[in-house]
């Protein structure tokens, strides 16, 4: 088998930057669309946390499966979802991923193993555990990943899921996106524990990483994934980050002092990655070109989404159950 040159550190950095830029651009556009009343319901942005989804996704393969949560745009885009269908869904259109039935909190794409965002805090945890069980039994060679917040740490299924995964040596990566907040309350006021100590309780391998450093996240994720894929059982990866926006768009964040937001803003993972890339020799024009290219991609997706047709009730009603099929004898 021939060998190509390993991609240079610079090109790797640029790939990560490009991926983060895509998440950022998409979410900023979502924020604007929401403010303009073009998005029904509510949306939770992961702005400032892109290094987590992108860094972890960099360690994954297409058919690795992923269970996400309410703040799942980054997970979805990083996992490789089609941008048009992503925006179509969030705008509630017929050709969206969920045919307009789910919206932001339910984006899914089975073709790339994205098992869905989830409106129930903690619910993705056992889903990922079960998906990992399927990978193991079906010997797919794939793994399952779940993203959950620090607030989700308090749910009972966290414990049940960590225990089950460790007990059965399942190929699952638990990614705790520790952004300091659980809605309008500091997660620290909700937890007498933390991800590292919880993992330790099950003798589960665990890593902690600066979640705003995409290179560090990618490196940690690659290490964890390699071990998981090698059959060594689950791992918990804690990514320390900060929520930049409100819990959902429209949240005035009166409960939060300005300093907290300012700190979060100062530590922008995209800026950090950009600085690193330039330091590694990437020309500013390349960065600018990426920005422009991605802005165009998002423009195009938004335009497609805006002009999308609304879904028809009759189709939705017909899709509650699978089409009936022949019974075996």
């Amino acid at each position: 088998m021939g060998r190509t040159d390993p991609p240079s550190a610079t090109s790797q950095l640029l790939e990560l930057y490009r991926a983060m830029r895509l998440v950022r651009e998409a979410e900023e556009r979502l924020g604007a669309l929401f403010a303009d009343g073009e998005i029904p319901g509510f949306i939770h942005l992961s702005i400032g946390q892109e290094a987590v989804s992108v860094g972890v996704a960099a360690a994954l393969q297409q058919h690795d499966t992923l269970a996400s949560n309410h703040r799942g745009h980054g997970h979805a885009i990083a996992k490789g979802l089609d941008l048009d269908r992503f925006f179509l869904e969030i705008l509630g259109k017929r050709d969206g991923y969920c045919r307009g039935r789910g919206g932001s909190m339910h984006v899914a794409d089975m073709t790339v193993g994205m098992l869905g965002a989830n409106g129930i805090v903690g619910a993705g945890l056992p889903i990922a555990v079960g998906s990992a069980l399927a990978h193991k039994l079906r010997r797919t060679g794939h793994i399952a990943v779940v993203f959950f917040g620090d607030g989700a740490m308090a749910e009972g299924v966290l414990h049940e899921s960590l225990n089950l995964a460790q007990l059965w040596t399942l190929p699952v990566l638990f990614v705790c996106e520790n952004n300091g907040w659980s809605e309008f309350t500091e997660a620290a006021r909700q937890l007498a524990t933390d991800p590292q100590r919880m993992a330790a309780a099950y003798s589960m391998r665990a890593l902690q990483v600066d979640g705003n450093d995409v290179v560090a996240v990618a490196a940690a994720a690659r290490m964890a994934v390699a071990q998981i894929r090698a059959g060594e059982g689950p791992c918990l990866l804690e990514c320390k980050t900060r929520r930049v926006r409100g819990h959902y768009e429209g949240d005035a964040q009166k409960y939060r002092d300005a300093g907290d937001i300012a700190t979060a803003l100062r530590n922008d993972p995209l800026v950090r990655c950009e600085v690193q890339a330039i330091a590694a020799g990437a020309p500013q024009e390349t960065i600018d070109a990426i920005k422009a290219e991605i802005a165009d991609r998002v423009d195009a997706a938004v335009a497609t989404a805006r002009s999308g047709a609304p879904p028809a009730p009759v189709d939705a009603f017909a899709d509650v159950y699978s089409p009936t099929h022949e019974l075996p004898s």
Partner: protein
Amino acid sequence: MSEVRFGQAINRALIDAMTADPSVILLGEDVARPGGPFGVTRGLLDKFGPERVRDTPISEAAITGAAVGAAMTGLRPIVEIMFMDFVTLTMDALVNQAAKARFMFGGQSSVPMVVRMPHGGGINAGPQHSQCLEAWLAHVPGLKVVCPATVADAYSLTRAAIVDDDPVIVIEHKALYAAKGELADSPTATPIGRARIAREGRDATIVTYGAMVSVALAAAVELAQDGVEADVIDLRSLQPWDEATVLASLTRTHRLIICHEAVEAFGIGAEIAARMADVGFDELDAPIVRVGAPFMPPPFAKTLEDWYRPDAAKIVAAVKKTMS
């Protein structure tokens, strides 16, 4: 008498109850410092302090279970579940513990707790944030279930729930929180289990509750233009529900339509229809027609959700069906 919002009426009921009885406490996600996800508990932390008004972790099962233990040990806890869809996580505490304790322990202990939870759609919150699951709870002996439709009832049913010695689920329609209405200067509690005649008519009985009451009233206005006068009954309490009032109305109108936002099949309306098809059979001049959501999860997109939720037109059509 003053005009207040539905959410404010609940807020005032909580304040009055907590002022009247130091054993009343409040537990829930974001209910204290942030004042509640829908602002219903605003100001309570300042008034009653952090011992009695508590932000909890995202641990619905444990906080509901803790309310059971607290109620058995002398408190009257009020738990807020942020969306009724999350009641799935509290079913054991509600059904196997709270509902059964009094009966199961031979009447030794009652469990005076309240669980508040918003249900329903209308804000495109999608499949996991819009459900109306009250029929589950109404099926559980030992629980009481109320669902206010008006500002006055938002106050009075909340007060009644808190003072009740049994576990009471208070279901609030999230689209009603901002609705305005009159609240008496010294409002009182209202007995659980009594329906309210929201409009009097002689031609058909429309039984409904919660946010659908105003929709049914709008339908009644439309029907009146065609000379059809509908009785609109606001159940207020779903368990127990006011069979006598419904039957009395049916005895006058001989036609029954039941409307709720929950999925029609196996919903609250099924029980009302079934009872009336038994005890009210001789009064019925027409099929009992229900108006509820079709058998699918609440969808997200506006076109879908609008189609999904019952509206005045569907109620009018249902009433006319019973007249034809």
